[in-house]
Structure formats: C-alpha cells, structure tokens
C-alpha cells in the first residue's frame, strides 16, 4: 500500500504507544482516586474532585498551558527537573503521554467512581466484619463488582488519549518523526493541503477507535 509510508506508520505506532502508556497510568491512578472520592470523607475532597474534573471542561489548550507552566523548562516542577538532570519533558513523547494522561483521567474517574459508588456498602461492611482488611475488600469485593464501569472507563480513556490533540500540541509540539501523533499529523497534512494522506489517516484513526469501542462493548455485553 502506497499510503502506508514510514511517516504514517510512525504516527500510528506513536499514537498507540502514547495512548497505551497513558491508559495504564490513567487506570491505576484513576481507580485509586475514584475509590478515595467515592468512599472517603476528608478535607479538600471537593477541591480534589474539582481539580480532576476540570480537564474535562477546559479547552485542551488551557490544560496544556497549565502543564507547560508546571513541567516546562522554567515551570514550577520542570525547572528543578531540568536543573538536576538537564532533561525536560517538553517536546518528547513523554510529554504526549502526560498530556493524554491529564485529559483522559477525568473520564476514568467519573466512570469508575460511579461504578464504585454503586457497590452496596453493606457488602463492604460484610467483608470487614468477616475479617478482611480494606485493601483485601477492595480487591476481592469492590473491584470485581465495579468491573464493568472500570472497563468502560478504561476504554473511554484509551479512545480519548488516542484522539488527544490540543494539550499534546502545547506540550509535545509538532516534531515530525518524534511527537507527531496521528491527530497532529492530520493537522499538519490538512494545513499543507495533502488531502489524500489526510483522508487515509482520518479513516485509519476512526477505524482504530471504532474497533476498540466496538470490541469492548461486545465483551461487556457477553
């Protein structure tokens, strides 16, 4: 196939890689945060809830802007990282992972939290009174019973990460052969009028996203 040249393949692979890594991070931390928000009462709970929901409603460019302020070479955290190691996350594929992570996290938290909240609190109490610790109860009762919601959240996060554009552009830039994920490559191709290649990439991205959602919906229905 003549469209499957190196740059298209690179973008496809990079996109899948970024989405996969960020989804793993989103799943692990998102389930943890969702559990804490669903079951714990503490000072600052409302604030945490708001902060992890914000990326859902803010334009990705604004989320990206905050991330640059935090992790940029002169950023609040990035500055020290650069001083210590001479390395900055900016314009690397890690930056694309970070951007996808932050943007996809709210989807995971919202879905997983609803699922965890729907687990009958009596089952949790029963587990405690049968001698099981909170951690054991989480893994043997709460997690299996909120499995569906967590799977749904993971797939949504993956699809969102795969399609992430705005924050990624701010943080990772548009460096051909390094940080041009599919959405960014599509933007570049469109701006320079390369319609044939753009069409192909758009179709590919749609098919890949559609495939993941379709297979997961089927898996959940069984």
């Amino acid at each position, binding site marked *: 196939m003549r469209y499957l040249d190196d740059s298209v393949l690179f973008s496809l692979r990079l996109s899948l890689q970024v989405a996969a890594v960020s989804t793993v991070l989103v799943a692990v931390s998102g389930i943890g945060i969702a559990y804490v928000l669903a079951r714990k009462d503490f000072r600052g709970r409302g604030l945490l809830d708001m902060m992890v929901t914000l990326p859902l409603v803010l334009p990705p460019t604004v989320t990206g802007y905050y991330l640059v302020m935090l992790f940029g070479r002169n950023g609040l955290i990035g500055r020290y990282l650069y001083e210590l190691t001479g390395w900055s996350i900016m314009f690397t594929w890690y930056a694309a992972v970070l951007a996808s992570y932050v943007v996809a996290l709210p989807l995971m938290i919202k879905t997983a939290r609803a699922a965890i909240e729907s687990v009958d609190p*009596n089952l949790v109490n*029963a587990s405690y*009174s049968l001698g099981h610790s909170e951690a054991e109860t989480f893994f043997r009762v709460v997690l299996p019973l909120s499995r569906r919601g967590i799977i749904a959240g993971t797939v949504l996060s993956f699809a969102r990460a795969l399609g992430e554009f705005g924050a990624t552009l701010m943080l990772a830039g548009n460096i051909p052969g390094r940080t041009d994920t599919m959405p960014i490559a599509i933007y570049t191709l469109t701006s320079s009028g390369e319609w044939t290649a753009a069409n192909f990439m758009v179709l590919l991205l749609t098919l890949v996203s559609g495939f993941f959602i379709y297979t997961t919906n089927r898996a959940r229905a069984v």
Partner: protein
Amino acid sequence: MGLTVDLQKEVKGFTLDVSWRAEDGITVLFGYSGSGKSMTLQMIAGLMRPDSGSIRLNGGVLFDGSHGVDIPPQRRPLGYVFQDLALFPHMTVRENILYGAGRLCRDERRVRAEELIRLFRLGGIEGSLPSEISGGQRQRVALARALIRRPEALLLDEPFSALDNPIRVEMRRLLSRIREDFGIPIVLVTHDIIEACTLADRIVVYAGGRVRQAGPPGEVLGNPAGPDVEMLVSAAGTAGLQLPAGLHLN
C-alpha cells in the same frame, strides 16, 4: 462471660442510650422499626462508632469510649448476618462461605466449610451463585458464612423478615440448632413479637432508643413494664401464643 453492651449515640435528633447483657442462648432485641435495634448491632460489630459507652465480649473489650479502645470490625470475633444478607453476588455459595474463614489454616477451612455445608443442607448448590438459589438457601449461606470462623457471638439483623412463613418456621428450627451446637450468645433483632417469643431466652424491649424492659419472654408478656410495652407485645396475645404455665396476658 457473655456480651455486655452499654452505648450512647446521637444521630440527627435521635438519641440511643441502651445497656443490656446477653448470655449464651438467644437474646432478642425487640421493638418498632427505628427504635435503635439495628444501630446497636452495627455498633457492636464496629461498623458505627458510639459516642460513649463500652462493649465487652467474654471479658475482652471491643469498645471503651472512656479509655479510647475501639477494636476495628475485622478483629471483633463476631458473626454478623445482615438484614439483606449481603452475600457477595460474584462469588459462589462455597466461595461466600470460605470468604468468612480468613484466619483459619487451609485444611481447617476446607473441613469447616464441608461441615457447615452439611449442617445447613447446602450440598449440591455449592457452585451456584446467590442469585441462582432460593431465599431460604441464601439465608443459610449467610449463617454458614458468619459461623465458619467460630465467632464468640452471633448477631442477626431481622434475618427472617424477607422469608415466606413455612421457611421462617424452618429457619427458627435451624436457629435453635445453632443455639445448641455453638453455645455462644446470639443477638437477634426483630419487630415481630411472635418471632421474639418463640426464639428468645431473653427479650430486650427497645422503644425510642432506650431499653424499656428486659427479661424472659414470659415475664415481658405477663408483666409488661408499662402501657407502651403492653401495646408493643399485645400482638402476641391475639396470635394465641402459648405462655409458660402460670402466666396470662392482661
């Protein structure tokens, strides 16, 4: 020995202030819904924290407000059967029962599980999910799960309220059997006076978050502490309940 309870708790305008004692055998906490019976059980199990008071079981302290002792629910040697049973829907009957056996060693768990499956006539459905078995069977699974780790007391929150009458009779018989076999204090919450009288060695009458009267069923029925208790237990008379010789309802 036995279970000694002395609890105070205030929640949303409701004040609970109760004190009673349960020996081996069946102690029934009896009263209208909302009189604080289930709340008492939750506090004994460590699932709700009392404002003050103490809970002692066989000489051990489970809770003591004035000394800051509050043993977590995991380490209270109790069996607790919830009102809705709280069976784990994703585990089979056997897995549900074994889930209660955490502290026992592996062989003992297996042996105990088989024993209880036999005692509660659950043979043949060990591999079924709770959603696939009858209400009476679910009830027996919940009891087996609560008893597998040899608790020092058994707490039952309205355990038979969702069952049809013939099964209730069967469950009462089973409970008498548990009473004989296990020799531990059994605390049963109910708002059904018939159930209270047929099962209880001792009745503790709750009203508005306080204990109005405590004693053997005959005494409570025959000699109610006041008009409110008389009202509460009057259904027993109309149901033609047999009273011990020498007692009669007013």
